[in-house]
């Protein structure tokens, strides 16, 4: 196996092992996500916006729980400045970014697997028409969101900034994701239009642009 | 002239020229700060 792939797996393994051992983030983040879904569910009443309230509420839950995940996985590197030791090893910053992105995505996926069913349930949003489209659209969104989150978490963690700043940085940039995925699902589920068109284009373009941009700029923000 | 158009232009121009005016005040403050430095230290000609 090429050295780069080996290093990548080592780093992801390290992140997941640390997370499994402390298990703090997963618990905290999942409960927060659930709380958001419950509170908004109660507030907006069951079938808000014809059940499409679910997608927006899920997005709010993803955004907040995602921010906590990104912050935690970066804090692990900062706690004993282990990042400086990592930067001295012969791994490229690109691999470091991809490993950190994958660990963040793994955490987000675990959280989403708990929150999404809850959201769909509370909002009686019947997915039966096309559950896979729903899953595909949401995962495309999460990938793009994790790309920016990983980059900005590295930025925020290298300075003594407060937590709220990371959320403030990510949310406006992630808005096109929220709009596009919500509209796409409305077109899909309510108007039975085939998936595709502008909505999907925005999601795919978002992922492509920000995966490459974050990957390129990650090393600029890395501060040992 | 419709009063909405009037409102739009007054607010718009007030804001635009307000920014310019506030910056002018900052320039004067910067000038005073710089002049003080110049007197105390004989700085830039």
């Amino acid at each position, binding site marked *: 196996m090429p*050295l780069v792939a*080996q*290093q990548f797996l*080592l*780093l992801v393994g*390290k992140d997941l*092992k*640390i997370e499994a*051992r*402390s298990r703090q983030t997963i618990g905290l983040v999942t409960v927060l996500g659930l709380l958001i879904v419950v509170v908004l569910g109660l507030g907006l009443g069951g079938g808000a916006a014809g059940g499409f309230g679910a997608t927006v509420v899920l997005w709010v839950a993803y955004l907040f729980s995602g921010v906590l995940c990104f912050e935690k996985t970066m804090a*692990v590197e900062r*706690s*004993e*400045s*282990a990042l*400086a*030791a*990592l*930067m*001295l*090893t*012969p*791994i490229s910053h690109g691999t470091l970014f991809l490993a950190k992105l994958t660990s963040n995505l793994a955490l987000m996926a675990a959280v989403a697997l708990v929150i999404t069913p809850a959201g769909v349930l509370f909002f009686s949003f019947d997915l039966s028409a096309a559950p896979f489209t729903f899953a595909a659209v949401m995962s495309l969104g999460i990938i793009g969101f994790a790309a920016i989150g990983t980059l900005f978490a590295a930025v925020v963690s290298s300075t003594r900034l407060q937590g709220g700043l990371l959320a403030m940085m990510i949310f406006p940039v992630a808005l096109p994701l929220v709009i596009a995925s919500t509209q796409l699902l409305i077109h899909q589920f309510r108007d039975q239009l085939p998936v595709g068109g502008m909505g999907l284009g925005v999601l795919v373009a978002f992922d492509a642009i920000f995966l490459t941009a974050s990957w390129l700029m990650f090393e600029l923000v890395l501060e*040992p | 002239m419709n009063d909405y158009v009037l409102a739009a232009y007054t607010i718009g121009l007030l804001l635009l020229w307000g920014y310019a005016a506030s910056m002018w005040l900052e320039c004067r403050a910067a000038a005073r700060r710089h002049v003080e430095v110049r007197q105390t230290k004989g700085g830039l000609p």
Partner: protein
Amino acid sequence: MIAARSSSFFTETNPAPLALRAADLGKTIDERSVLQSIDLSIAAGQFVAILGINGAGKTTLLKILATLMPPSSGQLQLFGLDVPRHAAQARARLGLIGHQSMLYRDLTARENLELFARLYGVQAPRRRAEELLSIVGMIDRADDAVKTFSRGMCQRVSIARALVHQPDLVLADEPFAGLDVPGAAAVERLLSDLHAAGKTIVMVNHDVLQSLRLAERVIVLGAGTIAIDRPARVSDAPGILAELAGTDPQFQPGEMVIR
């Protein structure tokens, strides 16, 4: 506690002409010049101690030497390799020990060492981690999480991490900070063994006498420039203390008590 035969274990390093050469190194951070015109050349195998009051720029200099921070001006060459152009190769031959342990607190000592060994592409990482843990005397705590360790233990595992890829140049930023007497003695022993094995060591330290005892050459950094650079003799202590005092206006030599 320290394995008796540790000094023979470190492989003899091939003595390159100059381990480290810095020409007119300078660093300005936020329009404030922290380091100016640093000219330094350290032969392979030399043990150099860098002294200086807080804020003299010692840690910044060490970060630049460790290729973690680019200099604003001047040139740096490690083992004849120009940094930052060949930073990757230079990094493969240097190890850094810092204030912080640079380990993952939630992982055990063994897991940390094996992780870094594999990242560096060391052959038989498991065996290498085992050896290093026995050298630094932490073999009995190998499978405990680092967060349960005292500062002294962390420091020793940190030294093991810095040596995992058998570097030729060891950079230590105040390795004795926060250590109790036995902890400091163990670290001193390790550094001396490294030096005996021919490694080049650059240590930033506060304790003048300890530095004079351990190092061959002492450099005093004053306000970003090299004030003194001479062989280390314990008899020099008063002169160096006076020099250190000189760099710090509020510091009165009279008050100093020489231990």
